[in-house]
């Protein structure tokens, strides 16, 4: 190659690098300038606030659990192995595993807290489902298509909150009283709280919210600034379960 061509190529190459570097650097190093919102843009975003201060005044109450489980034909199976639960109470230390310390205030220590599927904004269970049997609606609710579930239980492994249950055997013998308005499931599929999607999408409230006579459970649409749930979130400090995992849970607890 003669010297003139070589020199030209060198200059051209250097120019390309110089000219190309600014946009490249801008693209890579642009983080931190805009407002960083973790939430997806939605027209409707259902969420739930649980006021545990109210709930803790009624430690023997199981109204929300009973209402949900009756209305959805959730079977009652004893024993940790095969039990199925959509909403239940567990101890403070189990529900909020990252709030552990030796000097927990007495009014919380070992007390029952309601826990259920968090209908995360970024649900790992939806990410892993190989058939989209578990999927997220546009309104944020994570729900299931029982016809398509192959029972691989990948979603159960993915859920960081232990919210999902599997039908290890035929559930029907264990349903105490069948609700004719809702189907049962069959053995071999996963199930979980569905945010009463069959009610919420026709303007009704979830069973747990209605069942709580003391109003500890409030659901609503986070995109509506004047909704009751937004008011609660504006006026109270809330915590969520395992917030560092990037799931963006949408069940908020007023402690």
């Amino acid at each position, binding site marked *: 190659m003669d010297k003139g061509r070589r020199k030209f190529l060198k200059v051209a190459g250097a120019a390309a690098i110089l000219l190309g570097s600014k946009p490249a650097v801008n693209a890579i190093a642009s983080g931190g300038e805009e407002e960083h919102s973790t939430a997806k843009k939605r027209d409707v975003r259902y969420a739930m606030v649980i006021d545990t201060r109210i709930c803790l005044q009624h430690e023997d109450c199981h109204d929300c659990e009973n209402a949900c489980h009756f209305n959805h034909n959730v079977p009652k199976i004893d024993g940790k192995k*095969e*039990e199925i639960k959509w909403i239940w109470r567990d101890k403070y230390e*189990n529900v909020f595993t990252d709030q552990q310390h030796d000097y927990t205030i007495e009014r919380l220590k070992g007390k029952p807290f309601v826990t259920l599927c968090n209908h995360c904004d970024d649900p790992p269970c939806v990410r892993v489902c*190989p*058939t989209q049997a578990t999927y997220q609606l546009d309104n944020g609710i994570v729900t299931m298509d029982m016809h398509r579930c192959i*029972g691989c239980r990948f979603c159960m*492994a993915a859920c960081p*909150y232990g919210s999902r249950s*599997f039908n*290890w055997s035929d559930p029907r013998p264990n349903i105490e009283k069948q609700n004719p308005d809702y189907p049962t499931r069959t053995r071999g599929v996963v199930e979980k709280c569905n945010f009463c999607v069959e009610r919420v999408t026709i303007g009704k409230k979830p069973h747990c919210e209605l069942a709580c006579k003391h109003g500890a459970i409030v659901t609503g649409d986070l995109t509506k600034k004047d909704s009751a749930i937004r008011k609660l979130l504006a006026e109270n400090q809330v915590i969520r379960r395992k917030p560092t995992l990037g799931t963006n849970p949408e069940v908020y607890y007023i402690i």
Partner: protein
Amino acid sequence: MIEKALSGSRNYQIWIVILLTIIGAGVGLFVYQTIEGLGVTGMGRDITWGIYISQFTFLVGVAAAAVMVVLPYYLHNYKQFGPITVFGEFMAVGTVVMCQLFIFVDMGQPMRVLNVILHPTFNSVMFWDMTVLCGYLGLNLVIGWIMLSSEHKDTEPPKWIKPFVYLSIPWAVSIHTVTAFLYSGLPGRHYWLTAILAPRFLASAFAAGPALLIILLLIVRKVSKFDPGKEAIQTLAKIVTYAMILNVFFMLLEVFTAFYSNIPGHMHALEYLFVGLHGKSALVPFMWFAAILAFGGIFFMLFPSIRANEKYLAILCGVIFMACWIDKGLGLILGGFVPTPLHDVVEYTPTFVELMISLSIYAIGALIVTLLYKIAIGVKEERIYD
């Protein structure tokens, strides 16, 4: 060539009958499991994957190890592996079929598994796992069969098989990487949520797989007139040694990160496995046994004179295989579920039904390997007499 599998010595026939009996029992129990539901296994709400998935995970690694004979021979012309590549590929076929069967028997609705194909979900690692496993099965079956067929006809293999061979090399790595991704992307399971899971999987695969291959080749030499070659076996033994060293090293790296950082999420699973957690310690003896096997196996494999003695080599390969099997087949999956997301410790014990179905799947794998190896031996023995 298939006719070579249809006749054999008395021992061969007895072996086949034993395998078929075990398989028959397993099929019957699987029907029972399908009717009653997976509750007949030891799995439960908190330990949702047990023996079936853990065996699948372990066997994917063994299947991937075919690359350890294919790569040196086809990419780097290591002639000593020439005669045995087909045995590696056929071992891969048998193991991949076992993997798919273990997944199948673990499904709550096995009749719906085609939904994974009817409704492909590209963000789901399980969809990709199914894809790469089926692809790997196809690749190894075709490559092994074509290569053997060419040898049988005493001709060069057709040129079009070469791209498939080259494809099978990264594909082998991919099957185990994708399987590792099933676990290493789950935010709630801290024992699995580590970047080194895939390298750990690959290292233990390349230790356990060639170890099994060595044992199979020694059996082949014993029951037939085909000699895989002393040097080929010695090279495989070196691969097993280095891979096992890496495997144990990666495990120790995990231990360091967990305990030096003191982060509970990282430590809890290792504590459960090696000392017990919340009073539950069912896996502790298994894990220490595996540790002794692993370190002992590596130590003795380091001596060339011991490796050169094929009796000792067979024992050491069995030791290393067992150590990898306990680590992956027991410790990894069951440890991942401990503690539960609500920080309980729940233990898992497989039931008879589960164990018997697992055994019958192993019998199916053994049957496939037996039949394919019989064909391969038949072809190679003919060439010895020529």
